[in-house]
């Protein structure tokens, strides 16, 4: 795990106004169940899309778990994010089979198309790129998963086409509203 310097600590948190009461049901259910911190954080991320600082503090208040410990758990596991993500989350598989079959080229194609690198979000907030260890679809490598949908046997061009189509759909949906 990368170490996180104290100086950068504040920079990690992009705190937005969030409705803490959305957590109440989860906290009521789990705060007395020992060992459920990870489960609580998973629910929190599902609700807010990421883990805002104020929510972590709220969890600490309600459960009595030290906030340092909560931060420790939130930064240990790759699933947890301390910053919001774009509307489409691209999980690019960097597992062994994908690596052997050219996942680096796919990453370059994504960077070329969207101008973002691993962990970054596009300025218009439409895409976030996250590299992941393995999605378990090795026979279709290289693979990426966008919003839970898996796309296999990628080529740089195919990847760009998929992203263009998804970007278009996102824009259309916005205009539709």
């Amino acid at each position, binding site marked *: 795990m990368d170490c996180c310097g104290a100086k950068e600590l504040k920079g990690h948190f992009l705190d937005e106004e969030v409705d803490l009461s959305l957590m109440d049901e989860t906290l009521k259910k789990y705060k007395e169940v020992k*060992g459920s*911190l990870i489960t609580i954080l998973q629910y929190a991320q599902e609700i807010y899309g990421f883990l805002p600082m104020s929510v972590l503090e709220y969890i600490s208040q309600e459960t009595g778990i030290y906030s340092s410990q909560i931060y420790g758990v939130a930064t240990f596991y790759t699933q947890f994010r301390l910053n919001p993500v774009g509307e489409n989350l691209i999980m690019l598989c960097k597992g062994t*089979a994908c690596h052997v*079959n050219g996942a680096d080229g796919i990453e370059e194609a994504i960077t070329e198309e969207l101008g973002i690198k691993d962990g970054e979000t596009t300025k218009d907030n439409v895409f976030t790129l996250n590299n992941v260890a*393995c*999605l*378990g679809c090795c026979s*279709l490598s290289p693979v990426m998963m966008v919003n839970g949908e898996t796309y296999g046997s990628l080529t740089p061009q195919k990847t760009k086409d998929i992203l263009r189509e998804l970007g278009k759909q996102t824009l259309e949906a916005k205009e539709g509203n």
Partner: protein
Amino acid sequence: MKVVVGLGSCGIAAGARKVYEELENQVNKLGMDIDLEITGCVGMCHLEPIVDIYDDEGRMERFVKVSGDKIVELVEKKLANEDDSTYRISSVDEEAIGKQVRIAIENCGIINPERLEEYIEKDGYKALEKCLKEMSQKDVIDEIRDSGLRGRGGAGFPTWFKWNAAMQEKNTPKFMVCNADEGDPGAFMDRSILEGDPHRLLEGMAIGAYAIGAEEGIIYVRAEYPLAIKRLDIAIKQARESGYLGKNIMGTGFNFDIRIKAGAGAFVCGEETALIASLEGERGMPRLKPPFPAQKGYWGQPTNINNVETFANVPWIIRKGGDAFAAYGTAQSKGTKVFALTGKIKKGGLVEVPMGMPIKEIIYGIGGGILNDKEFKAVQMGGPSGGCIPAFISDTTVDYESLGKVGAIMGSGGMVVMDESTCMVDMARFFLDFTRKESCGKCIHCRLGTKRMLEILERIVSGDGREGDIELLESLAVEVKDGSLCGLGQTAPNPVLSTIRYFRNEYEAHINEKKCPAKACKSLITYEIQDNCIGCGMCKRNCPVEAITGEPKLIHEIDQDICIKCGKCYEVCKFDAITIS
């Protein structure tokens, strides 16, 4: 007529969902007269989407690579009794299944994983019934001992021994935990079992729980496997409703229930004590053993942890007897093992074969050989903890002992095939990059040692390797192994050591000659346009940095100072006029 569509994650990624939806639409809206079912992954991922059509006598015909646009036509033809062999599976591919021995994944890709009845039809829960009604705890453990079953998650520890240790503990409550945190990049057999035959896991866990005297079971499953979690959830509910889980199972007084805990993504949680820490809501960091989990595990109570594939073998062993299982395999490695065959292979997927089969036989006999008929270079076994086995010893057999001798491990069964275009130094760098990120940070040698090793490998692949780097890597490797508490650090240097052992010349070429023999490391290659260029301009138009110049119909040229070595020109040239050196 029954139509079964394979809906595992890999099938869905290949377009099986659309195939299913097209048929569903026909059945629901247009009244097509078929029974439509789903199933899990049969293991032939390279042929997905796969559709099995059963006629009224129960004869099955298998169709592969069926697209959503064509499925309705295909089924209509079958309904009209017309023969259509366009999508029928080839006899070669059928034979590839015939060469396997399926125990752990015997039902995967055959039954509907969301229907308990189909599992019951395949003798489901009979083994549990036999244990509860006819066997003592000791009988169960003896049967597992006779089978010779060893843990399929990586270390290969005898399963009966762990069960026996947990059984002998007086302290209650005890816990039965399934490690479904399949973190090895390149392995997906556990996902396939979870998605394709979830009841099998539940039955195996219940049998183990009975043997050790546990009443609570937990499945720790990767959050990256949403479909597996969904199907497990369905299976657990069904098992409870039908009395295979819960209080007083089958009227025998045995109580056992299972819950799912979604992991949050950390490779180190495959280690038992780290997994327990994670179950308790902590950072998943390993601790010193002893005490072993069998003595002090989850919340300090006796806990037994096995991997998914291990549990999936258990019901079969109880039904058919330990001796039947031990009849497969070698003297020390009994039974079968599921391998995930991926990488530069023609027919990638899951294969289950008896232990002791030569690697070559798996790659050529079942996997169909190397993609694009390139030259087979090596196979990586056991993921980031394992090692590379070069082609010249590919007659090594797959069993715990033989693999250990050549510097690899069985691991969870990932088998990544590499051809001549894969750079072995880059492979070592890739694995070190992985273990460095996944090191939990507790042991200094693992946390810093992997980082230093990675830095050395990075400079070698970028052409800045120094004399003595190989020796430095070797000595660091020994220290990281010695100075780490858990399996992650103890095995992290293996990919480096095994590539140095078999491909030292590649390391030397990178360091001394600044050349990458596989022509894969970007800093060490140049793209050049040869005289057979016809000046079509394709490369020039596609170059992202305008490094290519040339008039139409004349030989073009690459400015090496501008070239970023993206390889785009090489990809688009239709005349093979661009070479890499």
